[in-house]
Each structure stands twice: as structure tokens, then as C-alpha cells.
């Protein structure tokens, strides 16, 4: 089973805007998808290829991103925001601090694990910093 992740223009633009606004530091945020009524039927679809449409992105931090208390507050706020708009958290995006570093670092992996453990199908996006030079 493979999962294809489709990023909407809105989500893509917000992620890049966040990165470009704080080019000298790491940034991260949460990805949202539409919450469907048939989400409870996940068990039955486990063997099929799935597609996740990321419709929006919520920027989180651009400073000291591995500190947990404000991350907890932010995730609670985003869950509330999402559930009132038929959305749900579907993943996490992260851009590293250094322009030649597009690896999944320890911090990114840890935060992604925490966010994704409450999703049915979570994904993590890492911004390819080297491609930013083309902007």
C-alpha cells in the first residue's frame, strides 16, 4: 500500500511564505486535510493505495522549535480550529536552518512522531532548502 500526498497551492504557498519570512532559522508547522465521514472505515481500506490531500498548512514556530509546552498549546488550538471546519491534522512540515541541510533531523523526527501519533495517516514534509535558491 502506498500513500500519495497531494499539496494544495494554498498549503504550498503558506509553507514557502513561512520559510521566506524567516530565512535564517528553522521553521515548522502542521498540515491539515479534510476530515471525511468515512474515516472510521480505515481498517477496511488498509491494502489499497491512498491519497491524502493537504488543503492547508498552519505555521507553528521559527525559534526554539524543540521546546514542548507551546507546541502542546498550539496543537490543541489547531485541533479545535480544525474540528470546527471539518478538517483534521494530517502531518507536519519542517525546514532546517542551514541552506545545505535537507535531512530529517532528530528534532524534526521527534516532533513529527508526536503530531502524527494522533493521525490515521500522517506525513512529514521537509523543505528542500537547496531548491529555495531558485526562487
Amino acid at each position, binding site marked *: 500500500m502506498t500513500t500519495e500526498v497531494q499539496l494544495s497551492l494554498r498549503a504550498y504557498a503558506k509553507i514557502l511564505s513561512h520559510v521566506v519570512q524567516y530565512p535564517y532559522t528553522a521553521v515548522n508547522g502542521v498540515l491539515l486535510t479534510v476530515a471525511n465521514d468515512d474515516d472510521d472505515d480505515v481498517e477496511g481500506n488498509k491494502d489499497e493505495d491512498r491519497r491524502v490531500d493537504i488543503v492547508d498548512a498552519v505555521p507553528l514556530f521559527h525559534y526554539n522549535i524543540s521546546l514542548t509546552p507551546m507546541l502542546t498549546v498550539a496543537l490543541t488550538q489547531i485541533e479545535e480550529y480544525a474540528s470546527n471546519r471539518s478538517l483534521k491534522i494530517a502531518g507536519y512540515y519542517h525546514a532546517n536552518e542551514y541552506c545545505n541541510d535537507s535531512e530529517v533531523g532528530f*528534532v524534526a523526527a521527534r516532533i513529527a512522531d508526536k503530531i502524527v501519533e494522533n493521525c490515521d495517516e500522517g506525513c512529514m514534509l521537509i523543505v528542500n532548502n537547496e531548491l529555495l535558491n531558485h526562487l
Partner: protein
Amino acid sequence: NKTWPEIRDKLREWRKDHVRCSEKIVELGEYALAHYSSHLGNEKWAVYEQLCVAALDLCPGKMKVVNRCIQKLAEQFPSSLRVSMLEGLKSEYLKKWDDALEMYNSMIEYEPTFPAPYKRKVSIYKAQGKIPEAVSELNTYLDTFSCDHESWLELTDLYIGQQCYKQALFCVEELLLQHPHNHLFHQRYADILHTLGGKENLEASCKYYCKAAELNSSNVRALYGVLMSSSTLASIGKISAKVKSDHQTLAAWACDMIEEYYKAQRVDKSVIVETASVLDKLSLK
């Protein structure tokens, strides 16, 4: 479309506050040097330096500007340490790390009280991904220049990035000693304590969040911090009814302060409703 005094004052403001708006600095700096060189007088050398650093930020497109600035400054100030710094920065941009390090080391040997080359060495190690070396170099620097609060902040960030929270706490303690009325440092200290976790750290973090909120009642993160730490403390371990009640009262106070803050911002009603729900969840009700 700016007048000469506006241009001059803007460039001065950016120099004073170390603002890194490189595109604007290059635009205004080049214009000022081209059209108002005589008005600038001796200030033009500071503008050349400012323009050079900003142009390096926009390289490779602005390398000619960088070279012109360095040349002008070198002619005016031969064997100047500040001009050598610019040459070092240019080597850093070109990723000629060894050349830059050699330049900075010789500057340190020549003038050990000039702080800039020490900090550039830290930046080089960061750029190379050599974080332990950067930390070591920054510690050596702070042994001598212990009042440099920006460097303590930088070291805090490096430690936090490596999850060395105890060492990060030590750095913030230095900041708190030097700036005891800065609410952001109290909040940062509390954030790190809370991240470490455990009953004693949570109790301490609650105190520091309270101090941050006392110093600045608009620090909403500090208020959320009070709420989270006191709610958690009210629900963990064996505590007496009085202690539990005290924690719950504090949590309730924080909720009220946060709600008042949002209402004072005149946000949409739906935001107030959502916030109330978020506060309930964070209060572990």
C-alpha cells in the same frame, strides 16, 4: 522617492538596531553613495561597511558591490581590523573556510579584545555543521566576554538544538542575572524547565511563567505556561487537597487572564468560543 534626511536617518536606524533587511539596505546604500557622497562626509565609510555586509547577503548577484566596498574601505583604512572582517566574511560566503579561519585566528592573535572574529569562527563551525566545535568556541569566547547577552542567547539556541537542556538552562540563568526584568528570558527558562519535565521542574517552570506574566501581562505564552504547568501539577502524584486547590486556582486565574486578553483584542466571537474550549482541554478538565 525619499528625501536625503530620510535616507540618511533610515540607514542610521538600521545600523544602530542591526536590522538585517539586506535588499533595502543595498538599494538605499547604493543610492546614498551615488548621489549624496558629499552630504555623507565621513559617515560614508560606515555606509560602505553596512552596504558591504548587506550585499554579501544578496550574493552572488552583488559581488561587484562587495568588492567595490572592500576596495574603497581598504584604501581609506589600510590594515584595519574591520576591513579584514569584511574580507573574512567574503571568504565565508565563498565557503573558503580555511582562509576565513586563518584570517580570524590571526586577528585574534593580534588583537584578543576584538570580539567579532571569535563570533565569526562560531558561525563558520555552524555553517559546516560542526555544532560541538561551535559550542566549544562560543564557551571559550563567553569565558572572556561574559556580558555579551546575544552570545548567551546563541549558545542557548545551540544547546536547545542538541537537546542539552541543562546546559541551556545555565545559559538562560546568565541572561537572567544580567537582565532580570526581561519577561522573555523568564519565559524561555520556564519553557526549558517544562520541556525537561518532572515535578520539581514543573513547579519551577510555573514560578518562572508567573514571573514572566507579572513582568508583562500581555505575554500570552507565559499565561498558557502557567495554565499548563499548574494544571499538570494539580493532577500528578500525591498532593494534599490544599496544594491541589492552589494549583487549580492558579490555572483558573490563567484561563481568565487569557480570555480577557483575547476579548480585549476584539477578535471574532468564534475565536473566543474556540479559545474557551482550548482552555478547558489544557486545564485537563
